[in-house]
């Protein structure tokens, strides 16, 4: 089987439309993961035991089960209990929760990297706890967590391919439907891989550049 440039060219629009969904899902999923992860980390540090324990247990559970199973559960099991979401919403929710559990670890480490003396300085100035978090702790956390966040962003971008199994028409589904019509796999699959790489590599460079910029600003 040899590479067919014409066919490759023909399926580009289809793949790009898939890529658009992949990027959208990743972006929304990541925003959600940031919120979930940060909230989780703060609760685990500052919440009452009644909040802390379930949060820790749930995060542990989410990290200990495959994303694939979680997606199946959200998409095929929950509707049986009356909770039906669109495939797209399920995908975003699944990615957000799954990666939120990982990001909470990243944030937790970042929060712990802030020296005790900084908390005490804020205490001695009688900052409220909200102000301590907002003005003192989180700004110092950001720089620390950036590399970790960048890596998870790229992982999430790649893992969003799993959403194809719950019928989200992202990049991999687009490639599959293209090959399903023609029974040619070489071009769609190769191009899909290349497209993933063409997005993830510059992203990782961007993350590193951002890191350096913030590093200098200290």
């Amino acid at each position, binding site marked *: 089987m040899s590479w067919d440039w014409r066919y490759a060219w023909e399926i580009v629009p289809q793949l790009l439309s898939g890529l658009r969904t992949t990027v959208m899902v990743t972006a929304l999923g990541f925003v959600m993961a940031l919120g979930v992860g940060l909230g989780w980390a703060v609760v685990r540090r500052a919440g009452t035991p009644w909040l802390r324990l379930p949060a820790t247990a749930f995060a542990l559970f989410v990290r200990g089960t495959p994303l694939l199973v979680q997606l199946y559960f959200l998409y095929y099991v929950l509707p049986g209990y009356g909770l039906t979401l669109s495939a797209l919403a399920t995908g975003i929710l699944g990615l957000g929760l799954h990666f939120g559990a990982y990001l909470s670890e990243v944030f937790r480490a970042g929060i712990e990297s802030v020296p005790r003396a900084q908390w005490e300085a804020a*205490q*001695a*100035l*009688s900052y409220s706890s909200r102000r301590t978090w907002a*003005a003192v702790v989180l700004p*110092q956390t950001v720089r620390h967590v950036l590399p970790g966040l960048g890596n998870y962003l790229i992982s999430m971008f790649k893992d969003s391919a799993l959403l194809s199994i719950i019928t989200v028409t992202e990049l991999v589904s687009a490639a599959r439907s293209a090959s399903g019509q023609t029974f040619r796999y070489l071009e769609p699959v190769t191009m899909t891989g290349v497209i993933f790489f063409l997005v993830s590599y510059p992203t990782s460079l961007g993350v590193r550049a951002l890191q350096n910029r913030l590093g200098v600003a*200290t």
Partner: protein
Amino acid sequence: MLRNVTKAYGAEIVLRGLDLEVARGERVAVIGRSGSGKTTLLRLVMGLERPTSGDIILGTTTMWSELDRRGQPSASERHLRHVRSRIGMVFQQFNLFPTMTARQNVAEGPRHVLRLSRAEAERRASDLLERVGLHQKADRYPSELSGGEQQRVAIARALAMGPEVMLFDEITSALDPELVGEVLDVLRELAVDSGVTMLIVTHEIAFAREVADRVVFLADGEIAEQGPPRRLLDDPTDARTKAFLNAVLRR
């Protein structure tokens, strides 16, 4: 004022039944070997640590209790914040916030705790930075300042909250020798032209003699001896004070 204050970490007793009364406007220097409980004393007064037993009373307010005597419910976070807001502390390691400029470090408290307008908070910050001789470096980050400069910002930051009592925890110990002078100068000026009560933990005996109204010598978690600087430093009666002063002054 501390009444019969004890602080223990597990089996290790750091302060044992300490009584110390400081008058409004008084400047008290606390000296003693490392490990004698000096820093713990300040941390207790600041409310960063809770005494194992005993009371810490600021004016008529007891720090860890809502009411003013024993047997009361534990203090709320709000009560503690209120008591702490009347006290300022300067740390050995400065503890400036690295993500804020000098001015932001000083203005943050007035702005968000005292709820001044942004303009007022910044003006107060600028005035205080000028007072510690750093108005030209107001927009630098802590990492761009020398240790002495950082410590002066930290003093300005604590003063910006308008405390009745200022606590200084070995504020020159982390500095290179040539930077000690500039920080002590600021402190000296403060002692002269503000009525603020000062509790100064220090190794600078000469400075204690010059600035303090009273010197307290702490040993083994107790006050071994206290009195006017000249009396205590030139003519100590306690054997431990003598040994300590000999060791320090011989350097």
